[in-house]
């Protein structure tokens, strides 16, 4: 099957790589001629300057990988044209724009998913099944932390522009983190937040780093936060501490500590799904219990999960939805909106 990719930057290329690994073919659209040329060469694919040309092709679905600000215009157009659509996270650059996308998705009835890839790591799926079996009892607190030591993506490009991206670390890696957090805990609503957003590293002329996602050497824009710390209370009484950083003077970590009334867990996920730095991807789950017996004791159980490529799992999820015209709940556009709403609430409290 053939899929159309709108936006041929780093995200578009990642999605195209996954699709071609799965035996699908791709065509692409970008207004930037360099991006078109690179994509065309890499995938031996046809590229177009305008989205209108894409809709005339025989394609099974569309993937939106444009800068965040353009998600709405391109996704609503694709949905209106009747195509199943996968939107790179975050759903949009701000909450009103995200709401308008959901409105169009509802009206058209086309399958519409948001790409939150960490959720498709097998350790995360297993953790969710333990939650659903009631293993943890009631979850009372989660410590969710995704900290990179120096990992600002595309520093100086649209990724770090408030106007185009809509936000910094919280809207980028934070979208995946909030998605995993809400997914594990059954989509509770935030009622209170104390938070702080900082911009300490990206603005430095002498920002030192070892590797950068989408480093195109055009450092120019930087007016977003590079870290956020927040404490959240939810309607069901649960609390969560959230820490997200593109850059921090700390060891890198992407980890969820789940504390329930009956048991707990530590879930460690990949710090960087672009696969440049991590092989194999971090994908670990351990379960924590304290059992009463003749001698009371702790049990720390390491769960062994199969290594399966989360990006491929996610893409299969989308291609199946596209071909069967299904509306899976996992990573639905409605879930994308809940993530966007939570992030908006945290931003409001943190700026």
């Amino acid at each position, binding site marked *: 099957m053939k899929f159309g990719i709108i936006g041929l930057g780093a995200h578009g290329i990642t999605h195209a790589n996954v699709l071609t690994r799965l035996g699908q073919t791709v065509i692409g659209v970008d*207004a*930037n*001629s*360099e991006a078109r040329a690179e994509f065309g060469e890499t995938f031996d694919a046809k590229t177009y300057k*305008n*989205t209108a040309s894409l809709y005339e092709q025989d394609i099974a679905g569309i993937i939106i990988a*444009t*800068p965040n*600000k*353009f998600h*709405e*215009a*391109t996704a*609503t157009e694709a949905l209106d044209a009747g195509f199943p659509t996968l939107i790179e996270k975050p759903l949009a650059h701000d909450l009103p*724009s995200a709401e*308008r996308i959901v409105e169009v998705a509802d009206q058209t009835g086309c399958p519409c998913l948001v790409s939150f890839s960490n959720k498709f790591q097998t350790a995360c799926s297993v953790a969710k099944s333990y939650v659903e079996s009631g293993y943890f009892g009631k979850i009372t607190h989660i410590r969710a932390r995704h900290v990179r030591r120096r990992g600002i993506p595309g520093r*100086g*490009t*649209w990724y770090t*522009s*408030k*106007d*185009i991206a809509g936000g910094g670390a919280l809207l980028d890696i934070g979208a995946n983190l909030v998605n995993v957090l809400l997914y594990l805990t059954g989509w509770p609503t935030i009622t209170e937040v104390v938070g702080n957003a900082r911009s300490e590293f990206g*603005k430095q002329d002498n920002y030192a780093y070892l590797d950068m996602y989408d480093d195109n050497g055009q450092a*120019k*824009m*930087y*007016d977003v936060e590079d870290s956020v710390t927040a404490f959240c209370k939810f309607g069901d009484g649960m609390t969560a501490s959230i820490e997200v950083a593109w850059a921090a003077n700390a060891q890198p970590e992407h980890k969820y500590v789940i504390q329930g009334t009956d048991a707990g867990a530590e879930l460690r996920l990949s710090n960087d799904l672009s696969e440049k730095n991590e092989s194999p991807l971090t994908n670990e789950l351990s379960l924590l219990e304290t059992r009463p017996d003749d001698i009371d004791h702790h049990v720390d159980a390491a769960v062994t999960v199969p290594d399966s490529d989360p990006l491929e799992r996610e893409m299969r999820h989308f291609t199946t939805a596209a071909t069967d015209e299904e509306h899976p709940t996992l990573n639905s556009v409605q879930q994308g909106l809940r993530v966007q709403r939570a992030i908006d609430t945290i931003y409001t409290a943190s700026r």
Partner: protein
Amino acid sequence: MTTNTSNSGRIQAVQTTLAILEVLRDRRVAGVSEIARELTYAKSTVHHYLKSLEEAGYVERKDTQYALGLQALTLGGVARERERLFHLGREQVDQLAVETGEKVRLIVERDWRGITVYQAEGEQVSQTRTHVGSTELLHSTAAGKAFLAAIPRAETHEYISQTGLPAQTENTITETDELLTELDRIKDRGIALDDQEHYTDIRCVAVPIVIDDETVLGTISASAPLDRMSEERFRSTLPNKLQNIAGVVEINTTYSEWIATS
């Protein structure tokens, strides 16, 4: 009916009309003899042209003095509407003017002059020497240097030979080598500074707006008097802000058809 044409094939009457209008643009107000002297035309000729222009509303007369009429604005307004940078950059210029309190402009190059196509003034600005339609030389202004740095070097040399780099203040760069070094520096950093090179008490910062195919759409500039333009603001704060804005305008321009209308 025959039309008088000069050797170059241009229509003489059009040339004369435009020359008179341009004198009125540069001088704001002028009498017949003043215009005749500047253009070395006969006074009677100038008088005839002014009378026709007055009837059409392009020139207005008060006693013996002439000035451009509002009909001229009807042409300028339409010309500006067609300029992409005006539409794609206006909102950002307004925002920055409010945020900084200073004067922020969109400047587009035509015929080796920077033309102000839009400007917004923050609350600090009490009077301004520029307005929409102001023209300035390139080598003495931040916006002009940003433009010169972004175009092919052969074209820069053409500008130098055509204008001769006249001094506007004692800080104006008037030597070719010095200008070329300055333009290299600007190209490296992506920021142009005018440290009292056009007006003695004004500092200005500008960045070019360059899109996909390396087309220079124009420049965005922010200026302030010396007493409000500290070294920090001049060399760091404003350049960073302008680069953020220029980047946003560039991306919005490249993806203009992808911008949601709602």
